[in-house]
């Protein structure tokens, strides 16, 4: 899932400072699941903005709406009836959602209220970790299901660097050394020999080095 976290409130306040009618749009997909931009966070942000304006003695009109998915134009279309009545849109979706709105409503500014961090997985209640970089050329099949691109701080393809300490990354003891994990998993799978295979220098094009990616499924398009 795309994992995001809310922006500092002051940044959002600065974005909307010139405006008095705001459409605050949540998304019921990834950002709901990672508790960054679902219906509840929309309510909280609206309330926070109200408090801010109350203290300033200013008025602000916030309409809250949470779309099923902000990255689909059909859902974004649901904003159409309200868009003329507002000065600006604040989106609590990931960057994809913000841009989908911006693409549809050209005359209304749209501001992000969250920072899209990574593609992650839930580790436990309230904890999410990065798992995928979207490199476009998945190697998980040979790295025991643990991604060296996303989970090694140096994207190393051929084993751990010399900084591993107690099985943890040199960057932080809170980060597992991806290659330690890969090695342990390969051993469990009885696939230790995989490790000795030299992995060639990566072609980064599918992951964005080749310019913004587009997928076209001709059978569907």
């Amino acid at each position, binding site marked *: 899932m795309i994992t995001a976290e809310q922006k500092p409130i002051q940044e959002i306040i600065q974005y909307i400072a010139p405006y008095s009618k705001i459409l605050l749009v949540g998304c019921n997909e990834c950002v709901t699941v990672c508790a960054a931009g679902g219906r509840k966070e929309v309510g909280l942000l609206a309330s926070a903005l109200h408090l801010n304006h109350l203290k300033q003695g200013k008025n602000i009109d916030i309409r809250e709406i949470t779309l099923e998915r902000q990255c689909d134009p059909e859902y974004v279309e649901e904003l159409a009836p309200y868009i003329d009545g507002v000065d600006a849109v604040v989106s609590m979706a990931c960057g994809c959602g913000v841009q989908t709105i911006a693409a549809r409503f050209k005359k209304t500014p749209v501001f992000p209220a969250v920072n899209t961090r990574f593609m992650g997985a839930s580790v436990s209640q309230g904890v999410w970790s990065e798992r995928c970089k979207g490199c476009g050329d998945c190697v998980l099949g040979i790295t025991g299901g643990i991604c060296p691109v996303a989970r090694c701080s140096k994207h190393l393809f*051929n084993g751990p660097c010399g900084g591993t300490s107690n099985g943890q990354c040199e960057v932080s003891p809170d980060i597992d050394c991806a290659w330690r994990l890969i090695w342990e998993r390969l051993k469990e799978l009885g696939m230790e020999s995989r490790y000795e295979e*030299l992995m060639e220098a990566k072609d980064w094009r599918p992951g964005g080095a080749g310019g913004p990616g587009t997928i076209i499924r001709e059978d569907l398009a």
Partner: protein
Amino acid sequence: MKTDSRLEKVLASGELAVTSECGPPRGCRPEKVTEKAALLKDHVDGINVTDNQTAMVRMSSCTAGILIKQMGLDPILQMVSRDRNRLAMQSEILGAYSFGINTMLCLSGDHAKFGDHPMAQGVFDIDSVQMIKMVQQMRDKGLFQGGAKIDGPPKMFIGAAANPFADPFELRVMRLAKKVKAGVDFIQTQCIFNLDKFEEWMKGVVDRGLDEQVHILAGITPMKSVGMARYMKNKVPGMDIPDDVIKRLEGVPKEQQPEEGIKMAVEAIERLKQVKGVHGFHIMAIEWEEKVPQIVEKAGLYPRPKV
């Protein structure tokens, strides 16, 4: 001989090789490089020139290497994958070689988090193993990594680092094997304080016959003080410092600790000379370069062979 590298020649002669290192300055004064390098003159077979060591901005290793080369000494160009993508690396190698730098060391590099630009994006386009392979291909096939032909390929004697102490320990020999497979010629190891563990690793290296395929230079660092020992134990990633080392330094008065540190370094060299597969020493006297000749001499590694 694959290259004109002095280091390659010493190793080929069967003598124990000695290398040391020199960190370029955080500024533009060339004399800082030449003064440091002069301290090592005649006592080593190659001088590593570090590449933005510990992720702190310094004079580029290539430029400092050229300054050393111009002194008639033998720089070893360090290159980390953190700061350059494959294009930048290759152009740098071409440039260095054009000034006669013929020995290099391929590294991943410390993470940017440790340095003075923690906000920097680490490049890590290729890793150190892939870099070894790239340099080897440039030398032996005359091809760029992308496959195009090089007009006058660089003939680099290729080194890499190995840390016998980082975990998982069982991976450490295999990782060396990978570097050998990629084409590495010599290895400089992490500073060795836990000699037992190093010997265990070396046994693994010999068992796999890797000592026949690569020259291993054991890393030696003299301790300046017990404080430094403690700092390295606790703060430096991938470092294995047994309690005995700290105890021994604690056991002598502060003013005698540097001397004791040197003594320990010499003892280590003496012991490691006996280890099969150890073909030399890489003496890292961090900000203490002036002591390197003393260590080399005390360890019976002086004078250096003429090649």
